[in-house]
């Protein structure tokens, strides 16, 4: 009789701990989703700023058609990205396109002094910083979640309920990886 009680107590404990771990995994996963949503908010803000920026630059540099197209295309691609990985790649492309745009601006001193342009530039810079911070927070949350998926004993619960690991939001500067060509 006593033996049965002990078994029941052990099963009870296992259940309680199991429920606790399951709930913890759910909480951590939701934090990741929330963190991603924050990144998304900042990305949308950036997309909203870009058309304004392009128009302002166009006002002074109509013939730089190639650069404008590059930016617009990259922006469209980024807006339509579905997965975290796709988003990362699209953002990378967009950053590269914006870099080219700002490089072009260097040739137009009146544009550089334009108040509207300066304000947009500051806003864009601020938004890019915020994207970086939101991304960092997302990655921190992903680290906590993935770690919990891998350590014992929560990995058992994770396996039973099919919790999947999340991807980090990696932005690899493919442009930075190419060798720099210097020509005079």
């Amino acid at each position, binding site marked *: 009789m006593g033996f049965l009680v002990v078994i029941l107590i052990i099963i009870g404990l296992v259940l309680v701990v199991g429920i606790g771990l399951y709930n913890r995994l759910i909480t951590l996963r939701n934090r990741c989703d929330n963190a991603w949503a924050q990144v998304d908010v900042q990305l949308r803000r950036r997309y909203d700023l870009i058309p304004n920026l392009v128009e302002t630059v166009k006002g002074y540099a109509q013939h730089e058609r190639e650069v404008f197209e590059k930016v617009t295309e990259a922006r469209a691609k980024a807006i339509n990205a579905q997965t975290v990985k796709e988003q990362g790649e699209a953002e990378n492309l967009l950053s590269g396109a914006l870099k080219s745009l700002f490089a072009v601006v260097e040739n137009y001193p009146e544009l550089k002094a334009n108040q509207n342009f300066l304000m947009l530039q500051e806003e864009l810079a601020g938004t890019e*910083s915020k994207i970086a*911070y939101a991304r960092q*927070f997302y990655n921190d949350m992903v680290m906590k979640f993935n770690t919990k998926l891998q350590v014992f004993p929560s990995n058992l619960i994770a396996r039973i309920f099919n919790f999947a690991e999340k991807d980090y939001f990696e932005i690899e500067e493919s442009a930075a990886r190419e060798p720099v060509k210097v020509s005079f």
Partner: protein
Amino acid sequence: MYEQIAANKRKSFFLVLIFLLLIFALTWILGRQIGWGVEALIVAAVISGGMAWGSYYSSDKIVLALSRARPLRREEYPYLFHTVEGLALAAGLPPPRCYLIEDTAPNAFATGRNPEKAVIVVTRGLVEKLNRLELEGVIAHEMAHIKNYDILLQTLAVVMVGVVVLLSDWLLRSFFWGRFGDRRRAKRGKGDLGIILALVALLLAVLSPLIAQLLRLALSRRREFLADAQGVMLTRYPPGLASALKKIAQDKEPLEVANKATAHLYIVNPLENIQGKVNRLFRTHPPIEERIAALERMSSPGGQVGPITLDKKRERI
């Protein structure tokens, strides 16, 4: 970086534990002496807590008024707002309000009873004299204080000091007035203390208030180290804060609105410049050299990744 954060949290916990042990010791001795140990503790906690509650609840309004800070408008320093909002995102907090003190001495502090009601206050000197990387380091440090509920912790520490002061005061009185209350109560508390124990108790009663203050200040210093480390976790760039601390410490201008009541809140104690040498144990903040050394340990390979948006940050405001 992670190791420093964990170590600082452990040491804070340890200090709070010692504090609690001190309170329990006093309660126990008081119980033996006059038979009213736990009841005395409850009364002391209520008195001390009640006095502190008001200041904690309205901590943001009170401190802002004391420091003559005014709300900052976005157009004045858009970069500051971007920094505060960005770091709030990195910390997973709602963005705090920004206030300004019109003083050319660079300094900053955070207040507010919880992250939703938090406020970050900077001086004009801070935003004018620090470059973007340094400013980020300072704001990140303040954000860490908010995230850690350090204002709440400081208030609790003040309450505990109050409890210790009250308990030790009553203990001392009980010695002066002989057996407090009637002999029956004392006998219920298992009789009178032996001579040795009485001496120890007397010593404890006299020294406790001092010990409590030292504990509170040690805790304050430990939380500063923790805020430094966690701030760096937000920016991933220790040299930013290190450089800011150096600059602030070297600036010899006194902060006019600072006084003893608010000095401990600032990122660098504004009164140390004026008062000269302050005894090490009584400092609310750790010495700047130690803070910078701790930050530099985080910069070694394997401990740090690098500034987040490399190209955007190199200019002054």
